[in-house]
């Protein structure tokens, strides 16, 4: 009887996807029909840069942040101010935006990550509300309600295609980093935080440090994403960074399913495309969009990622479990292994 272990099957699937998606992403500009489609694809990429980092916080560590839009805004204004006003190179601004995002993430996370579930979500929400309000208030720096233009990146990233490749490369890099985190001890540690903080503490996981580290990382990706976002949109106003956008990032992960990367990616793609599909219905477009969303949840109530997992699960048969039979010599041997070098 053929029997594939979950991990083996999941590995197979993820390896195929891990090779396939980047190649596909690189080839896409040659496949799409026009600049609009490229714009939407770039937008997906930009959102994904943020979501990939946020996924570690929400999907893995189980910390419900709905305030990353605040970090996105910080990144966006960094580009607009540094490059647009001060004339610093955009790539430089990108790095600064990442650092600033990380710093803000760290400073926000330091008190907020001590809060239990819902309260943490509220704290992040509060943060994003404060950020947008400050953007309006400090109009000398940010242009206030009128917003400010955001410059493009220098050549070769100044064309739609060039910028797309910049986003794809950054997106792939972030995905790679997030993937590395998720599949090693850190990923397991994060899942432990999410599913049982009691167990996590019991095995010695420094709970706050882990949360803070991934939250900071997600701040960096949010800052970078903000920078790219601003450049893609050309012009930013505080009105672009709404509560709804914060929820959007959150639900990309929720609909994708927790504890995996491909699901939230699919979620980001689907959720970005849906309004575009509904757009030609003009007045009814927004209604249609929410109805489509609702239908999507009801059709795949476990999230896209879990649907995928269920598919993998189909390829395995639960064994007829033998009774537990300890192998004492092996146990003793395992226990008397030398300590690893510090």
């Amino acid at each position: 009887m053929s029997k594939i272990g979950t991990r083996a099957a999941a590995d197979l699937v993820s390896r195929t996807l891990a090779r396939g998606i980047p190649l596909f992403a690189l080839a896409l500009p040659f496949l799409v029909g026009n600049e609009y489609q490229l714009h939407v694809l770039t937008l997906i990429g930009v959102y994904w840069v943020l979501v990939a980092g946020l996924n570690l916080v929400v999907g893995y560590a189980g910390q419900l942040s709905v305030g990353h839009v605040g970090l996105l805004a910080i990144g966006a204004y960094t580009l607009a101010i540094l490059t647009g006003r001060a004339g610093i190179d955009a790539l430089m601004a990108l790095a600064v935006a990442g650092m600033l995002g990380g710093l803000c993430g760290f400073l926000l996370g330091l008190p907020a990550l001590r809060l239990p579930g819902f309260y943490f979500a509220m704290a992040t929400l509060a943060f994003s509300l404060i950020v947008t309000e400050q953007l309006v208030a400090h109009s000398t720096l940010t242009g206030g309600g009128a917003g400010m233009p955001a410059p493009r990146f220098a050549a070769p990233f100044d064309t739609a295609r060039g910028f797309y490749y910049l986003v794809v490369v950054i997106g792939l890099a972030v995905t790679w980093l997030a993937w590395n985190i998720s599949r090693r001890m850190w990923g397991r540690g994060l899942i432990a935080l999410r599913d049982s903080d009691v167990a996590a503490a019991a095995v010695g996981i420094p709970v706050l440090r882990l949360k803070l580290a991934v939250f900071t990382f997600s701040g960096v990706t949010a800052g970078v994403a903000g920078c790219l976002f601003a450049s893609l949109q050309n012009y930013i106003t505080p009105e672009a960074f709404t509560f709804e956008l914060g929820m959007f990032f959150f639900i990309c992960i929720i609909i994708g399913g927790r504890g995996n990367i491909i699901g939230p990616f699919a979620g980001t793609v689907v959720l970005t495309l849906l309004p575009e599909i509904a757009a030609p219905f003009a007045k009814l477009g927004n209604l249609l969009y929410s109805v489509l969303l609702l239908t999507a949840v009801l059709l795949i109530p476990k999230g896209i990622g879990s649907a995928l997992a269920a598919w993998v699960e189909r390829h395995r048969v639960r064994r007829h479990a033998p009774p537990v039979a300890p192998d004492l010599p092996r146990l003793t041997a395992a226990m008397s292994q030398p300590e690893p070098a510090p």
Partner: protein
Amino acid sequence: MTMQTATGALSVRGLCKHFGGVAALSGVSIELRPGEVQGLIGPNGSGKTTLLNMLSGYYPIDEGSIHLGNEDLTRATVQRRACAGIARTFQTPRLLPTLSALENVMLGGWRDARAGMIGAMLSSPRARAEDKLLSERALELLCGVGLAHALDERADVLRHGEQRFLEIARALAARPRFVLLDEPAGGLSGNEIASLGAVLAALKNCGIGVLLVEHHTDFVFRICDRVTAIDFGRVIVCDTPDKVRAHEDVVRVYLGA
């Protein structure tokens, strides 16, 4: 009462804990030596789980002290104690349901994961080596406790008995000096209890001190070197199994006629 502290023992002195008006523990002193299996018995609500929780750091201590060898752990956090070598299992198993059995056990080895997030992120050779080491250790431990057939299963689909052994394996992955077990035999059938006994004996041989909270008295008296009986948060007696079994207070409040 004075107690001779054996070298490297986990010793508890005059531990007190109140919950509101209820005194869950009032002046408990016990000592767990390396390489011994010590039973902890007592009626329901006598404070056994509370004692375990205080040993592993989940509750702050009202009064008293906890030392591991010369190290003062009285105010240490849960994590600190875990890294100092105190591992435990829970009255109801606390596994990570979505992780496989192997990953659950690897998680137990957190103490030895030193690669840090940057290292993990960049997939540094060190992180990879560490992962390999931990997964090998986890594999050996799982096979050792008899779950070789369940490596890849998600923890939540395991049978109750398997979950108990998995939790023990996870505790062992931390290379602990002491293991605190809260009713590990709860819900196990006869032969699984026998396996559990064998595993505990193996631990003892490896020099690990085991504190065993358990209501299966036959099992406790058979397997333990010493047994401590508590009632109303106080130690009644701490002695060899035979003496404890015959102790009149223990019979009166716990064993019954």
